[in-house]
């Protein structure tokens, strides 16, 4: 099939803190014959939203402007980046004042924001653009009898009217994609709740409490692993959980969806950086 190209937006954390997400994404995309354009982009703006809404929107809009200039749809594996890019897209459309201000700033670099730059999250690309049928064809080692808790991640899901990711109250996209790998997506009440990472190193008591609740719930619902498709969520469930892990409770492995999918596609674990996960998960291989 014809190679589709996306402007790849890894976000700031992947290169240094979660290289395995970058690697596994690259690997899976290669398998699907999808090319990723790696033009240098800047911060999505999400981290600075506490500080200044306008700054956050400007940063995001610059990326959208670059994507527009290159004529490429933008794809990010991070839910927070996705969320903020969507926020920018939304507010720039609605708020002419903001639009004027931001475009004035971008003009200095010969850039300008324009409507309708397609913004995708990794999952929406896989679900909508690639489609489960084609994914199915590439599954060589279905993860049968693996029970997975799919963690949605807030910033892609809500506010639904801005992110347009999936039905914000009862989404199904992640469960569908888990099913593609042959694994079973468990039903768990807290699947749409926050992982707690936004408060990490700000209020660790709450941050870990939120995470702990979800892990108890996931395990109680029979999950063997928890899967994420967001840089921050993964950092929380993998790195933070590993650091917090006490002798009493053994941690619940958190696996990136691209790793899950990669394994199911028969890609070698090294390429997917499975060993880089702090909490080890060894797929039982035939």
């Amino acid at each position, binding site marked *: 099939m014809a190679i589709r190209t996306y402007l790849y937006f890894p976000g700031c954390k992947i290169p240094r803190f979660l290289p395995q997400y970058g690697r596994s994404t690259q690997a899976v995309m290669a398998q699907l014959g999808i090319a990723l354009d790696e033009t240098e982009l800047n*911060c999505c703006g999400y981290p600075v939203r506490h*500080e200044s809404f*306008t700054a956050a929107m400007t940063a995001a809009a610059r990326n959208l402007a670059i994507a527009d200039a290159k004529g490429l749809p933008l794809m990010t594996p991070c839910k927070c980046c996705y969320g903020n890019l969507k926020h920018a897209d939304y507010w720039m459309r609605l708020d002419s004042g903001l639009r004027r201000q931001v475009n004035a700033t971008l003009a200095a670099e010969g850039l300008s924001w324009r409507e309708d730059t397609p913004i995708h999250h990794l999952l929406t690309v896989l679900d909508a653009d690639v489609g489960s049928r084609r994914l199915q064809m590439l599954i060589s080692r279905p993860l049968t009898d693996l029970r997975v808790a799919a963690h949605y991640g807030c910033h892609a899901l809500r506010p639904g009217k801005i992110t347009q990711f999936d039905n914000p109250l009862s989404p199904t996209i992640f469960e569908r994609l888990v099913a593609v790998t042959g694994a079973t997506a468990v039903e768990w009440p807290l699947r749409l709740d926050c992982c707690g990472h936004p408060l990490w190193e700000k*209020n660790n008591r*709450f941050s870990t409490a939120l995470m702990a609740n979800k892990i108890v719930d996931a395990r109680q619902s029979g999950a063997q692993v928890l899967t994420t498709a967001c840089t921050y969520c993964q950092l929380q469930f993998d790195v933070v959980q590993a650091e917090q892990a006490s002798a009493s409770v053994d941690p619940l492995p958190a696996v990136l969806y691209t790793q899950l999918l990669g394994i199911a596609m028969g890609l070698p674990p090294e390429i997917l950086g499975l060993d880089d996960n702090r909490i080890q998960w060894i797929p039982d291989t035939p």
Partner: protein
Amino acid sequence: MFLTYCAYLSLAVCVAGILWRARRWFFSAIGPEARLSTPGQRMVVMFTALPGILFSRKIWTIFKALMLDVLLQRQIFRQSVVRWIMHMGICYGVLSLILVHALDDLILADLVTDYAATRNPYLFLRNLLGSAVLVGLAIAVVRRHHVAVLKRFNTVWDRAILVILAIIIFSGIGLEATRMISASLFEEMVADYWGSDDTEEITALKSFWAQQFHVVFATPPPLDASHLDTGRQLHADYCAGCHSSVRAAFVALPLAKAITPMAAIFDRMRIDTWLWYFHYLASCLALAVLPFGKLFHLFSVPLSLAVSSLGPAVGQRPESRPIRRAMGLDACTHCGVCSRHCSVTPIATVISNATILPSEKIAEVGRLARDQLTIQRRWRLSQGSRTCTACGRCSDLCPSGIDLQDLWSASTADLNRSGYPGPHGWIRNQSVEQWADHAREEILAPASTDRPRFTGNPNTFWACVQCTTCTSVCPVVAASDDPRRDLDMTPQQVMNLMRLELKDLALGCRMVWDCVTCYKCQEHCPQGVPVADVLYELRNEACRRLDPAVPKKD
């Protein structure tokens, strides 16, 4: 005699300066680890570690780094050829001028038997190297004033270094040119090296020199064949030993020709002597200031590159990290590459705070380490630091091999410890009450950017039916076993404070700052109140009011 004194004085200053800079590497305590060891201990650690490194295979890594990154400046070449040309021109131009010219008596005079500065290839080399430096300087100037990020933040040193070098080179060329045409100098030379008083012969030599060496005499000598032949003969006998053809001076010669008309005046003023002093003293000055400004990178960068070739700071012993950071501070040439690629540079276009940009932040971190920052600048630095997303591009790209990312995390830790934890921490250290009094709206000038779009507008809250859904779905409130104690208020209560126009009371409330921005409240609100957006906006507002740089009303 006077000049020699100057030379030795500036040399002394230089050496002292270098030692003083080097001392900082051990004494400036950057990062939490610094508290674990004294400067003395750090010195010991470093010097005990040295042999271990020098007599191991690591030395090879270091050697490679020195070859590729210092001598060939691979990193710069990769990033931009033009910059590479610039840097090579200045760097090698200046260094070789020092060797073959400034230090000729000490080096060449011994190596070469019949050395004379006025002979080729030296004459030619001097011109060549000089022009190489000039080319480099030209590129540098253009770059400094056309690259967006750089031109906003040119420092005194960025300019000073260019100016000093320019002075040295131009004065040198001028000196050569004026000497070339000086008649008085000619007569001195004749007196010293020949001592004939046969006017006829002297005239002949003058004729030849006037024609061949462009000396300008008050009364132009005859240029007929017989005079010239005699002149050539005499030249061959007495002068040729030290004087090659000036055609090799491809920079000085055109200048000499250009100033011929003024020759008589210049000669009377002995301008060449003045230029000589000027040239010499400028060089001494350069030598003296070397350790105190950007020039110091001649030493610090190779050192830094050598160290960084041994891997990132985190991998190293805690005692050695502060040393490395201090060296890093010295190694910055303010070349601006980091800021050009920094992931948050666009944010600095909205939040006017230079310390968001790495190339500017590093200097401020230095001042922080030396405890030279006012409260206001500390706050700005903490804002700059927390805006960093730790993407690590700066570290990867720095041509001086500074582990900037490590520097940032270290300085941020220091700031947090010294009472600049950023709003999240700051708010936590105050009660809502203190807050309400501390940052009342009326004491602040109105916002320039980020005017509130939701708060302060009653329509935002009109639709609220007080159903408490926002609070009921909030995972943070749920995580607390006593919301009032942990969060001061619930989301619904914050919204009601807004409706009652009691914003001041809401700003410092921990609910606002412990919100995980999961947007459940907003998603579930049956009346479409943008609860999470309001909380976000309150944070923006609080940040604005926290900023000591925000103008207060008189």
